[in-house]
């Protein structure tokens, strides 16, 4: 890998005023800043980060990228993301190590088979690449998967999205950060938003630990802490914050050629570029902001991993960690205007935000720049919880909520 320069972006102090202030320098916040500057020419932008750049869920996800969601609205936004991923290294002139090694979603019951088959058809109708594989084809695609029919939950088939895969999450954050910085965006770390400056029903700035900052628009991109920030503006979001844990093994020789996800025995596994097995599963059930979860959740996913991959019995867990994910009632994101003029929200990505990073930034930037949602995020507004037009993706989210 090439040597990095010491600094990829400036480390400015905040100015007193910006056209747009984005709260949260994770992947979505950084991508939003980049596309505000690149697509809309809005460069007087600050991204405020209470900690350090991309140190939240952007540093904690399992880096899986796919677009095989069930509903048209989701296929639209996630497939837009996937198409942006396919050109992102070139766009940002930075190798994000995007590897389209294919994503398998295993079926272990007749219900899984029917749901998976339906999803393949739905995906194809939406122009998303999808195939149905028999157990033999699963074995061919990923030889280390145990397809023995004698196990408790045998593999009965799988969906395959060949264009899915993984990317190097840190590189993605650094690439967007450098790109935004070069276009004039201020990335301000160690700057915590503690309140909002209001003029009636309009938000005209933020209070921070480094003083007040005026803004033409304020855009939240703060994932698990979205409820806390929104409450400072008197807004209640339909979000619950939960720990989502993941783990890695020690570095191993290449053994796992793709991404395997299983809703039913419940684990998802890939092998990172360096060689560690990266695994995740469901959220811890209780609300938490602690960035840690309970060990029985880890035990459960390891048991699932061992049934699917007996070869992993030789591997050791090197490290486990948790992030705080913002779970919405329908497992779909909330992107758009809030009841307060000048305040925008992008949250509710829950367990699956990483894969959406480019499209999330793309449509959020459009929404902020024009004051109107992009066609791809129009269905994902806060109003859907009142109209009832939910986008229920609990199945395709592939993670228990």
């Amino acid at each position, binding site marked *: 890998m090439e040597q990095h320069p010491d600094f990829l972006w400036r480390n400015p102090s905040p100015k007193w005023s910006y056209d747009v202030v984005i709260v949260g320098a994770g992947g979505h916040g950084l991508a939003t800043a980049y596309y505000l500057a690149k697509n809309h020419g809005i460069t007087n932008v600050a991204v405020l980060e209470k900690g350090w750049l991309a140190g939240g869920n952007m540093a904690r996800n399992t880096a899986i990228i796919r677009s095989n969601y069930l509903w048209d609205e989701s296929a639209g936004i996630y497939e837009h993301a996937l198409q942006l991923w396919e050109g992102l290294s070139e766009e940002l002139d930075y190798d994000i190590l995007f590897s389209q090694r294919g994503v398998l979603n295993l079926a272990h019951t007749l219900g899984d088979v029917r749901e998976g088959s339906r999803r393949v058809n739905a995906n194809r109708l939406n122009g998303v690449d999808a195939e149905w594989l028999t157990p033999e084809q699963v074995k061919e695609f990923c030889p280390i998967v145990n397809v023995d029919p004698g196990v408790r939950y045998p593999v009965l088939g799988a969906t395959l999205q060949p264009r899915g895969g993984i990317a190097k999450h840190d590189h993605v954050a650094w690439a967007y950060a450098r790109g935004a910085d070069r276009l004039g965006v201020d990335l301000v770390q160690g700057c915590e938003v503690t309140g909002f400056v209001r003029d009636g029903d309009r938000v005209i700035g933020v209070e921070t630990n480094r003083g007040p900052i005026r803004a033409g628009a304020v855009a939240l991109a703060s994932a698990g*802490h979205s409820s*806390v920030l929104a409450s400072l503006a008197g807004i209640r979001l*339909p979000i619950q*914050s939960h720990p989502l844990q993941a783990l890695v093994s020690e570095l191993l020789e290449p053994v796992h050629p793709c991404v395997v996800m299983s809703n039913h025995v419940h684990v998802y596994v890939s092998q990172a570029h360096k060689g560690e097995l990266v695994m995740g599963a469901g959220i811890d059930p209780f609300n938490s*902001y602690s960035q840690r979860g309970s060990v029985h959740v880890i035990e459960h996913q390891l048991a699932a991993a061992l049934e699917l991959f007996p070869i992993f019995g030789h591997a050791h867990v090197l490290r486990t960690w948790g992030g705080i994910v913002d779970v919405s009632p329908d497992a779909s994101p909330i992107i758009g205007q809030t009841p307060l003029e000048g305040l925008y929200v992008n949250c509710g990505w829950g367990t699956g935000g990483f894969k959406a990073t480019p499209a999330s930034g793309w449509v959020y930037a459009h929404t902020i720049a024009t004051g109107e949602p992009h066609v791809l995020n129009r269905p994902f507004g806060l109003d859907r919880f*009142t109209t009832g037009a939910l986008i229920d993706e609990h199945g395709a989210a592939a993670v228990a909520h």
Partner: protein
Amino acid sequence: MLLIRCPWCGDRDEVEFSYGGQAGVSYPDDPEALTDAQWAEYVFVRDNPRGPYAERWVHTNGCRRWFDTVRHTVTHEFLGEGS
């Protein structure tokens, strides 16, 4: 792993319990009188504080009874019985 105090069985491992979310959310007295926004609030919106949180648990693998408690969502410390 949380150690959770069931009011009837005492301290037990988290694996014996299931989570019930926010405590004290009652069914609207007159659902038909609610606007769509008020109904949405009842169905979809719950408190999500960073700090003390009044919540429900059920001792699924024990006495199977529900109870309310207050837990801190950062430290996970149980702070006493809920309302």
